[in-house]
């Protein structure tokens, strides 16, 4: 639709083309059946004009709202557009005005321009004529009947002429106004000529006037112009000249009217074309979005089928070449699906259908997941990758983890893609923290970064954020969020940066930095625009700073709800169980972190602390550094050292270890090297065999779960370092298990047999049962069995439940004998039977869960000697001694 504003502006701009009209208006033809809808659409009612004509109001009293609505008619011609000079006529029904009605009816029946008799114009009260033109919905043949024309009428265009100003303007052009009196009469009705213009002061003297007929293009109306000289009878020559002049005036007037009519018709035609084009463009845009959404979805569904089948094909009997083909097909398929997902997101965004979830999630675990995703790539490139989450960020948040992950993955993916040396570093803080520390950060040296490579000043990336410039960061519109957590997340890289000329359009969909980028690095270029949109949905902002050849930092804010404020409302199962790390086994340990670079040390410390390990940081192992620590007081369980320090510390390390041994002879801290890439760790392993305690290697990116695995692998043997290979542990197992009576519970017969077989192999006396209830009945204190291995996932009563009941029975039993606290006592040992969980996947049952329900540990299902030994030795060792 063309708006009134558009029309007014257009008419204004083109006013010079019809200099003698004082205004242009457009009215539409509305039948009574369409009136209601029309009024609703326009937001006003159709007003009547006749009352206004009968009692002309003064200019200043004119109030369009006060006008009476039009009574019921067969059809109406309300004005919808008007040039600003005559905007007061909008909503007036032309068919209700006497002169206008006449005009409109004649104009549409004839198809020609029609003039009204001169009348007092509304509001201005000046004498004027209106030139009316009918506008038809289609092109009509020139011989169309009046009826056909009426049917085809769409609306009417009217040009308003103030007679007075019109004639004056013309006369001025002839510069003879002073000497000639001009009278223009409308003589359609011969007996009552209407005076349209009269410049003379007295009209009595009629003798010397010259009369000429005027033709304004309307055959039904006749106009006369009477001219005479003001002062005296003119000389013939002068008279001739004058009449010539008058003739010219008449011709000019006629011509001007005619030209105006043509102009108006043309304007109207252009306007209609524009409306048509706009409508078509809008429809095309909607259709495009719908098409994208549909097609993307339709491709994705079968594609998932293809991927699933490829996965199965992969597991069938294939030779090496075939496997390679399948793997390639699978990779391509995955790439295609992720691309389709992006396009689908974009289409969803365009149609406004993208919505966020609100579930509980562990931000740190989510980030660890993303980190794992990129670990291979970063190790391959030798780029240091790290995630740091401030301690002030709550453990559980409520929001959309999937979409948050999508933003992070997109930003990190870009960073890794464009970074070949240095680092990619993700940091998460509360906005409040960052605001407090802005001053501090500006002072710190640009070289103090994760990898030592310089980076652009991070705060520049959020310099344009609204929430920072106004002192109130919390978005007040988010009423749903009761306990908002305002996060600020930065992804910093030392990559090639974004060229300055491309920086302004980086968030525009389908725009990539340059055409060569898509060829070298692939991608659709909509990731960032999607991220920007998602950030917007999370009530945040996104920005960046980038210096070519130095690096880029993208920063965004997002508002989440604190997960602890209303726990009951959201179900727990969404929480990633992986996040509940079995921290207890490392709890209370102390680690010494050797790292000269503060930023990196902070990152390593964050991950190690997540395991409940206390961390002391020193820049190196020289005496001056560690002597400040209370080494004598604190037992150091492990030393974590950056790989680059390893070669330098070959002299200082033994001194340090000796020092520790002097203080506490039993202290043998485990040494771990933190390394960046797989390849470099191998070489370091090779060259360092001379050092007495060969260090274990933890490959970055650091994640709490991964560190825990590494620590467990090494620390598990912390008291029995001699048991290196499987053979010795098997022997030791035999010692431990010989003659023990052990109950094995599993609902799967095959597993039961294998487990029993394994334990029998080490000399144990094994009894098998296949349900939780039977286990409960057999494990009643005082206990017949020395230990029990129990499957967790069993029908009816699972392993956790069975253990809980067994422990309850034990408690009431020991209560009866009044020996609730006598675990050192020989008799009381029978009150607690060691129960170990058997489980195939570690995620399903974490250490913590097992401990909570009263189990003593767990072993993974397919029995492995070392692991079995490690667990069993915890509670059997004391008895063998």
């Amino acid at each position, binding site marked *: 639709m063309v708006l009134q504003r558009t029309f007014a502006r257009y008419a204004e701009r083109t006013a010079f083309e019809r200099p003698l009209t004082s205004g242009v208006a457009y009215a539409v033809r509305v039948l009574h059946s369409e009136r209601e809808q029309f009024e609703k659409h326009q937001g006003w009612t159709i007003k009547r004009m006749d009352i206004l004509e009968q009692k002309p109001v003064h200019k200043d009293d004119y109030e369009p709202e006060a006008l009476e609505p039009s009574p019921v008619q067969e059809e109406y011609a309300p004005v919808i557009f008007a040039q600003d000079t005559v905007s007061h006529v909008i909503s007036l029904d032309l068919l209700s005005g006497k002169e206008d009605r006449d005009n409109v009816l004649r104009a549409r029946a004839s198809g020609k321009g029609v003039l009204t008799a001169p009348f007092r114009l509304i509001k201005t009260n000046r004498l004027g004529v209106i030139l009316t033109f009918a506008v038809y919905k289609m092109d009509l043949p020139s011989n169309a009947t009046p009826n056909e024309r009426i049917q085809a009428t769409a609306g009417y265009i009217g040009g308003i002429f103030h007679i007075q100003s019109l004639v004056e303007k013309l006369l001025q052009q002839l510069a003879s106004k002073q000497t000639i009196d001009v009278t223009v009469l409308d003589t359609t009705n011969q007996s009552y000529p209407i005076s349209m213009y009269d410049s003379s002061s007295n009209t009595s003297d009629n003798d010397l006037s010259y009369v000429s007929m005027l033709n304004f293009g309307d055959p039904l109306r006749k106009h006369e112009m009477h001219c005479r000289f003001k002062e005296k009878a003119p000389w013939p020559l002068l008279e001739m000249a004058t009449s010539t002049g008058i003739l010219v005036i008449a011709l000019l007037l006629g011509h001007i009217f005619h030209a105006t009519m043509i102009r108006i018709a043309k304007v109207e035609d252009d306007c209609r074309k524009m409306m048509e084009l706009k409508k078509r463009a809008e429809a095309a845009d909607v259709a495009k979005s719908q098409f994208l959404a549909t097609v993307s979805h339709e491709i994705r569904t079968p594609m998932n*089928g293809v991927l*699933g*089948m490829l*996965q*199965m094909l992969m*597991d*069938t*009997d294939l030779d090496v070449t075939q496997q390679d083909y399948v793997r390639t097909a699978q990779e391509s398929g995955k790439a295609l699906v992720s691309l389709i997902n992006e396009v689908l997101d974009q289409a969803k965004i365009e149609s406004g259908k993208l919505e966020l979830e609100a579930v509980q999630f562990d931000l740190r675990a989510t980030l660890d997941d993303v980190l794992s995703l990129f670990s291979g790539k970063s190790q391959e490139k030798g780029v240091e990758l790290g995630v740091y989450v401030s301690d002030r960020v709550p453990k559980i948040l409520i929001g959309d983890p999937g979409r948050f992950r999508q933003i992070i993955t997109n930003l990190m993916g870009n960073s890794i893609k464009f970074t070949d040396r240095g680092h990619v570093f993700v940091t998460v803080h509360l906005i409040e923290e960052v605001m407090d520390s802005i001053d501090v950060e500006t002072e710190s040296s640009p070289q103090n970064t994760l990898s030592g490579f310089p980076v652009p000043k991070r705060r520049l990336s959020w310099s344009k954020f609204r929430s920072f410039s106004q002192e109130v960061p919390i978005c007040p519109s988010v009423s749903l969020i009761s306990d908002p957590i305002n996060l600020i997340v930065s992804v910093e890289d030392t990559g090639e940066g974004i060229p300055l000329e491309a920086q302004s359009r980086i968030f525009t969909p389908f725009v990539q930095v340059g055409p060569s980028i898509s060829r070298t690095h692939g991608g659709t270029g909509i990731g960032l625009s999607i991220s920007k949109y998602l950030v917007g949905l999370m009530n945040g902002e996104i920005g960046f700073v980038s210096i070519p050849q130095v690096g880029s930092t993208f920063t965004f804010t997002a508002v989440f709800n604190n997960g602890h404020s209303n726990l009951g409302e959201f179900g727990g199962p969404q929480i990633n169980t992986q996040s509940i790390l079995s921290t207890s086994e490392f709890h209370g340990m102390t680690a010494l972190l050797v790292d000269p670079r503060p930023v990196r040390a902070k990152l390593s410390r964050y991950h190690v602390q997540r395991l409940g390990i206390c961390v002391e940081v020193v820049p190196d192992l020289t005496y001056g550094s560690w002597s400040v620590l209370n080494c004598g007081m604190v037992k150091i369980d492990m030393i974590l050292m950056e790989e680059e320090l390893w070669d330098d510390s070959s002299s200082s390390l033994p001194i340090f270890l000796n020092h520790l041994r002097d203080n506490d002879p039993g202290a043998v801290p485990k040494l771990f090297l933190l390394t960046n890439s797989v390849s470099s760790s191998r070489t370091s392993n090779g060259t360092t065999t001379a050092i007495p305690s060969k260090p274990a290697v933890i490959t970055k990116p650091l994640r709490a779960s991964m560190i825990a695995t590494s620590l467990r692998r090494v620390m598990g043997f912390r008291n029995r370092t001699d048991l290196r290979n499987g053979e010795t542990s098997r022997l030791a197992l035999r010692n431990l298990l010989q003659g023990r009576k052990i109950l094995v519970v599993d*609902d*799967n*017969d*095959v*597993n039961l*047999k*294998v*487990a029993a*077989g*394994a334990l*029998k*192999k080490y000399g144990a006396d094994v009894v098998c049962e296949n349900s939780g209830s039977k286990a409960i009945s057999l494990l009643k204190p005082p206990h017949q069995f020395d230990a029990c291995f129990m499957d967790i*996932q069993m*029908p009816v009563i699972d392993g956790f439940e069975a253990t809980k009941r067994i422990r309850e029975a034990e408690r009431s039993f020991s209560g009866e004998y009044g020996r609730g606290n006598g675990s050192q006592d020989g008799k009381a040992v029978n009150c607690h039977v060691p129960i170990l969980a058997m489980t*195939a996947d570690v995620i399903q049952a974490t250490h913590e869960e097992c401990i909570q329900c009263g189990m003593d540990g767990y072993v993974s*299902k*397919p*029995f*492995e000697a070392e692991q079995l030994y490690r667990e069993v030795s915890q509670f059997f060792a004391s008895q063998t001694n």
Partner: protein
Amino acid sequence: MDAVHLKRQLITFTEQLFREGFLDEQFNQLQQLQDENNPNFVVEVVSLFFQDTERLLDELSKALDQANLDFKKVDGHVHQLKGSSSSIGAQRVQRTCIIFRNYCNEKNVQACLKCLQVVKREFALLKSKMETLFNLEQQILAAGGPPSI
């Protein structure tokens, strides 16, 4: 055929089973559990596995044939099969079970049916291979060779 020749054949055959992924390290562990106190341990366990699997596959076919599909039940059976196959080191069956369970979670009937077919085929393949393996061992014993393990 002499015992030495048969023995060589057995080794080649076992190697092939490992290379083609029918068996994994767990089967070695299983073999190590067999000793003079328990001379038929591997055959016993594997036979038990065959019986158990045949029963499970039967139940799975029935469960997947129902108009009102109980995915929980199907998942339970597949979980069992996954557990027992990993216990004896039947790698390919186990991996198929993992995929099977994923489709179970997605409630994708078509894919589940397809998976069942694959599991059945994998199991039949494995069974025939294992029977060949045990036959070879029997023949070695009959030919006067030492027990393979």
